[in-house]
Every structure is written in structure tokens, then in C-alpha cells.
């Protein structure tokens, strides 16, 4: 029921005269909006960092078919991210990350439904849709864990990995971490782990928040309070995390 927390009726011409909430939003919701604005700058700084380092490195000059992994040029994302669980050995460029993205966006949809149920004061529906959102969040995190594991493991065929020179001997790079990268320059792995990790941390805290909200809704806290605004606030955060993923996805997988 939003009746209890709706701003008292203030004539339109007096909204900015003080004594009321001019943007028709409670302070809590405003705070979430401003926090997200701030967080936007955190992610922007990281993506600008990505851009600056990415474009200071040489790109692959030949055709995509001739592409090979080397520390001398930035990898083509389609060549790096082409594996899908249970479909071993089949090249499916960007399919898995597409599924991940779809899951995350679907969880945004279920979040919208939870918020909508909150407006109706329908506790059962809030619980149901929050649960689906939580499931979506965990699925995304699990998929990311798989994606990371695959990336860390490196190319299946070691001869395909980028080479390095150790004591004058040319050897393939085995596995990726923050210092080395079998797919290309180490900076690619650094940025990949840092930025998707930073986003993953956001998703993780979002899931924790969602669980808290689910718990409160299920124990009737919001029903007693008379409104489900907390669902809306956490919903804002959840949509933001999804939106950021769209940018991260674009930068790492599409550009």
C-alpha cells in the first residue's frame, strides 16, 4: 500500500516552496539515486582506464581468420570468449556471455515485477518475484565464476596460447592471472579481472540486499510498515548494476 507513504497532497504550484518533497521522492530514494550517480563515476573512471590502456596497445591488423594469440596485439574478444559449458570444443563466440547478460536482464524484469507487487501491497507476489531475482543474481554470479575459471585456465590447446621468452626459450603462457595472459597483453587480463570483478562485487552486494529484502518481506516487516518502498530502493540499485553490466559487456566483448 503506497497510501501511507505518499507525500501529502501539496498543490502543484507550491512543490518547491519548502515543507514538502519537491521531487515526490522520499529522502531514502533520493539518497539511492545520488549514490548511484556517484557510483556511475566510479565505473566511468574504470571504463576510461580501460579505454586509455586499450588504445595505447596495438590492435590486430590482419583479418579475423588469421588471428592468433600474442602479447604483441590486443585480442579479438570473439576469439577469447567462445566456450560454453557442456559444449566442449565447439566454437560459440560470445554465446555464453550473451546468456549471462540475458539472465541478468531477466532478473531486472523480475525485480520490476517485485516493485509492482509492492505497490499493490501483495506480499505473496513480492516474495515470489524477489526470490526469482535472487535466483537470477546467483545464476549470473555462478556463470561469471565459470567464465573466470575458463579464462584463468587459458586456451585448451597450449600451442595456441601467446608466447613468452623465459631464459631465451620461447614457451607458451599457461593460464591467466593478474601478471600474465595467454590471450594477449597482460593488461587485458588485468582489466578484465578488475572491472568484471568490481562489477561482480556490486552484483554480489545486490544479491545480499535482495535477500535482506526478501527476508523482511517474508516476515511481514513491510506489511506492518504499510509500504514496500525498500523494494523500490533496492530495485533501483539492481537496475543500476544491470545497466553497468551493459557497458562492461560492450567494452570487453563487443568493442
Amino acid at each position, binding site marked *: 500500500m503506497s497510501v501511507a507513504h505518499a507525500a501529502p497532497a501539496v498543490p502543484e504550484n507550491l512543490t518547491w516552496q519548502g515543507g514538502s518533497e519537491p521531487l515526490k521522492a522520499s529522502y531514502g530514494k533520493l539518497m539511492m539515486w545520488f549514490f548511484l550517480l556517484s557510483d556511475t*563515476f566510479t565505473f566511468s573512471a574504470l571504463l576510461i582506464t580501460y579505454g586509455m590502456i586499450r588504445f595505447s596497445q596495438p590492435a590486430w591488423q590482419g583479418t579475423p581468420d588469421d588471428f592468433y594469440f600474442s602479447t604483441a596485439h590486443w585480442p579479438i574478444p570473439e576469439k577469447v570468449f567462445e566456450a560454453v559449458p557442456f559444449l566442449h570444443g565447439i566454437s560459440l563466440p560470445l554465446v555464453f556471455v550473451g546468456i549471462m547478460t540475458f539472465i541478468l536482464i531477466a532478473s531486472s524484469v523480475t525485480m520490476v515485477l517485485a516493485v509492482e507487487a509492492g505497490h499493490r501491497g501483495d506480499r505473496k507476489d513480492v516474495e515470489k518475484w524477489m526470490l526469482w531475482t535472487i535466483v537470477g543474481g546467483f545464476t549470473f554470479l555462478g556463470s561469471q565464476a565459470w567464465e573466470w575459471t575458463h579464462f584463468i585456465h587459458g586456451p585448451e590447446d597450449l600451442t595456441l596460447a601467446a608466447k613468452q621468452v623465459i631464459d631465451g626459450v620461447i614457451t607458451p603462457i599457461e593460464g591467466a592471472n593478474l601478471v600474465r595472459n595467454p590471450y594477449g597483453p597482460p593488461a587485458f587480463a588485468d582489466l578484465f579481472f578488475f572491472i568484471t570483478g568490481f562489477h561482480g562485487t556490486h552484483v554480489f552486494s545486490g544479491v545480499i540486499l535482495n535477500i535482506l529484502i526478501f527476508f523482511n518481506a517474508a516476515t511481514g516487516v513491510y506489511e506492518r*510498515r504499510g509500504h514496500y518502498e525498500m523494494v523500490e530502493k533496492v530495485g533501483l540499485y539492481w537496475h543500476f548494476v544491470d545497466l553497468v553490466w551493459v557497458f562492461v559487456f560492450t567494452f570487453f566483448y563487443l568493442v
Partner: protein
Amino acid sequence: MSTAISHAEEVHTHAHDHEHEHHEPNFIQKYIFSEDHKTIAKQYLIMGILWAFIGGSLSIMFRLQLGFPEMQLEWLRPILGSWIDESGKIDKEFYLALVTMHGTIMVFFVLTAGLSGTFSNFLIPLQIGARDMASGFINMLSFWFFFLSSAIMFSSLFIETGPASGGWVIYPPLSALPQAMPGSGLGMTLWLTSMAFFIVSSLMGGINYICTIINLRTRGMTFTKMPLTIWSFFFTAILGLLSFPVLLSAALLLIFDRSFGTSFYLSEIYIQGQALPNVGGSAILYQHLFWFLGHPEVYIVLLPALGMTSEIIATNARKPIFGYRAMIGSLMGITVLAFIVWAHHMFVTGMNPFLGSVFMFLTLIIAVPSAVKAFNYITTLWKGNLIFTPAMLFSIGLVSLFISGGVTGIILGNSALDINLHDTYFVVAHFHLVMGSASFFGLMAGVYHWFPKMFGRMMNKTLGYIHFWATFVGVYAVFFPMHYTGIAGFPRRYYSFTALGNDGQNAFTDLNQFITVAAILTFSSQAIFFFNFVYSIFKGKKATENPWNSNTLEWTTPVDPGHGNWPGEIPAVYRWPYDYSKPGAESDFIPQHIPFSATPESNLPEENEEIAKEKAIESLLAAQNESYNR
């Protein structure tokens, strides 16, 4: 759904009950984990003063080295221990730590937290007519995150390898490689950890300030009736909200470079004859990210001081502020420009000269809003009925410092000149006057002016005058000569000067000694303030509700405003805050809560029309009270 409604109503009546019961908070709720904005403001103020003395004493130590390089400092050994080397002088590495920590402490802990933290917290609810901050809990957390950050930074002063030493800007690779200098070891790690908490604290403070100003203004308090202090705190909070996160990103990337082997900022480095494996990063990238915070930061430091000065000057000149809307516009202009001039700190990084000229152009535009502000201060003072309270003197001092430090900003903003003057004492002189001292004067003015409302007592005026003149003369004596040493080529952050052209260092020995002596005297005179501050809290003359005959709402509260600020209804606001010496009026000030219908003798024609709106403003009372019960 009907049950939900009845539930809601139940909750509602409960909320009312709570309103009327009085829970006397216990000691911990009242003074330590307090959610009252006034207490939190005082906590920030006391922390800021303590930090200022620590930061100031560090500067005295390195000034001793600069003014008297041959001096025996054996007597400092009880405090500094092995940081005094065998020959009885300050250790060279520790000297770098001193300048770094002086900068860090003064910029972040004194002039950001100590200034914004104190006065945004104290004045926003009182001046806009709110019972407290939007979220007292987040406000309390903000202070305690700041406290945690302070504790970490303070502890870094005592570790064996010394605190961070790469300058307050902590440029990599110097700050990224522990083997580069002792201060880049544990000291740097603690610095970064501390700053991460500091950013969290400032974020929580900032969203609270913004949301409080938007949502909790009392009825009648439109944005264009807000005192300029509130406008300045509003823009300061926006600056912090949008620039600190970028420092957070920069710091996180640096932490990864330092501790986890990444190469975001590192590439092709030889250290002690050894090639490091890092390739692909860019040290310049860090500078861009840092100065995207670093430049707005100087306005985060300065704007609150400018806002409070507007208020204090208008009150004590007994005149309306000149150009109220121009003042808001120039604050807004400075806020926008603050984000697009950062690279003027980087003219010598090998930046494309054309790009440099773009940043130079944008930088010089800042002179316009700044000049508008200086002009408006002077025209407000012009032919005013000046009352020289200590706060007024410090405000006028701010205007003086803002101008004399500002004009050198035009010189340094020119890339061609800056390439010559970069990292010399000319720069040190510039920013210490325009940002350091000016903001410090704003802080002092604020303390003297709002002390009666904070502690219910008056500060001693005579001691205030002595403090002002000692500080004002002292600050100029310290920083003005630095223009000369800077032009002569003395580089900043150097331990000693041995090889200037034509033995130039010898020609300036006496000037450097003069600066050091002046610095010691200026710093010592702050003890007068400290004594006055502490003494007046307990033994000062009892204050009245409105000792300065001021117009703003905080002076309508009782001498010691309790939790909730106003014992009865929050007053409504009908007029702007600068009705001083209004022709026709009986007294020389008409507070904001006096309706125009009560002052027919002094109303201007357009103000008589406002009378019709008073009923509508008063009718908002129900909505306003409602907002506190939800």
C-alpha cells in the same frame, strides 16, 4: 489490502506516541554515537582542530630544515626518535613524509572534513529549518568512518618505515613500488586504506547534505530564499559526490598495482638496476584520474568558506549581500568549471600543447565567477555599517587572501608560464594563499560566528582580535615571500637547496629564515585560538539567542537548541535572508520568518504582492509536520 491500511494507521498513531514520549538519550547516544547533527558537527570540528595542530606542527618541522639547514634538532629526538639522523638533522626520507602528510592532513582531514563536516552538518538543518539531517544514522556513520580513516592515517605516522612520502598526490610509480622509497611500503598501504574509508565517509555525508536540502526545507524556504551558505554546501556536496568516486577508482587500481602485480600505472621501469616485468600501464593515467578529483577538491575546500563569508559579511556590514543571484550563479559556474580544468596540473607531462591551451582557456574562465564573488564581497562591504567582530575580520581576511592568491592563479593557469613555474615555491605560495589560508580563514570565521549557537557561550573578542592579526600578518609573511623564491627557481618538496644557478640559494637564505620564523610565530599564535575555544566552551560569557542580530533561521532557535532544534513548530520563511538596513524598517534587520504582512512600513511594491502568498505557505504546515511523522 484493507488490513494493510489499518496496519498503516496503527503504525501512524504509534509514531505520534513516540513523538510525545521523551527518551532522554544516554551518554553514548548523546555524545559518542550521536545522530544529532549538532553533536556530529562538533565532533567533526574537534577532530578538525586536532588534525590542524598535527598538520601544522609537521610543517614547522620541515620549515626548520628549510630555513635553518644547519640547525641541531637533537631536541626533537624524544618525539621523532630515529627520524633525527646521527648528525642531529631531520632524516631525508622523513622530510618527504612530512610534506606528504602535511598536505594530506590539511587538504582532506582539516579543510574537507573539518570544514564541510562541521558547518554543513551544523548549518544545513538549522538554516533551512529542519529538525535534523535526512538520515541521522547515515550521518553518524559518516563521522565514524571519518574517525576510522583518521585513526588509520594517524597510526601511519608511527610505523617504522614512516608514513606515505610520495607527496599528497601519491603519483605512481613512486607510490606504487615499495622498493622506491621507505614511505611507499606499509605507510602507503595505510594511506590508501585510510583514504578509501575517507571517501566512504564523504559520500555518506554528501548524499545526506544534498537530500536534506532538497527534501527538508521548511515551508516558504524556496531555493532562492536559501542563505548563500546553504547554496555553497549544496554545490560542495555535489562536487564531492562526483569527484571522490574517481579517486576511489584510482586508489583501487593503485592498490592492485602495489599488492597484486597488475600494471595499470606501471610500464618499463628499471629500479636499482633491475627491470620490472610490468608493461602496458600508464603513470599519466593515474594523474588524470587523480586530478579529476584533485581539482574539484580545491573547490570542495574553498566553496564552504566562501559561502560562510557571504553570510558573515552581509550580517556584519548590515547590508544585503550584493548580487545574491550572481553569487549563486558564480558558485554554480565554479562547480561546473571545476570538473573540466583538471589537466592544468599536468602541463609538464608532455601533454599535447593544443590540449594544454584548451585546458588553459577553461582554467582562465574560472577567473570570471571568482572575480564576481570578490567584487560582490567588496561591494557588500562598501559603505556598510561595518561591525568588526573577529568573524568579520576573518571573513574580510578571506577576501584579501582570495584575491591575492587568485591573481597568481591566472599566471599559473597559463601553460607557457606554468611550464616555467611548475613545482616551484611560486605554486606553493599560490595555493596556500588562495585555497589553504583562505579556507582556513573561512573555517575560523565560521567558528567565531557560530560558536554562540554551538556552545551557548561567546568567545572572547580581544583574544579573537589578537588571533586574527597574528594570523593575518603571519600568513602573508609566510607565503608572500615564497613568490620570490619560486620565481628564483626553488623547487618544492626538496630537502635542501645546493645547486641553483649562480649560487642563487645563498641569496635567499635570509628570506627562507624569515619564512620559517614567521611560520613558527603564526603557528604558535594558534594556541591563542585553542585556549579561547576551550575556555569559552566552559567559561565564556553566556550567549543570547541572536547575538549578531542576524536574519537566518538558526538564530530563532533557543540558546541551546535541543534535539529537533525548535521546541515548537518550525518557523515558516517568507523573505530572503538579507533584509539588513531596509529603508523604512524599525530595526536594521528583519529575520526570514517575519512575514511581509507584519512589515508594511518597509515593503517594496513587489513584496506587498507576496503577502497574498503567505496563507498558502502557512498551509504547508500540515504537510511539513506529516513528513516528520512518516
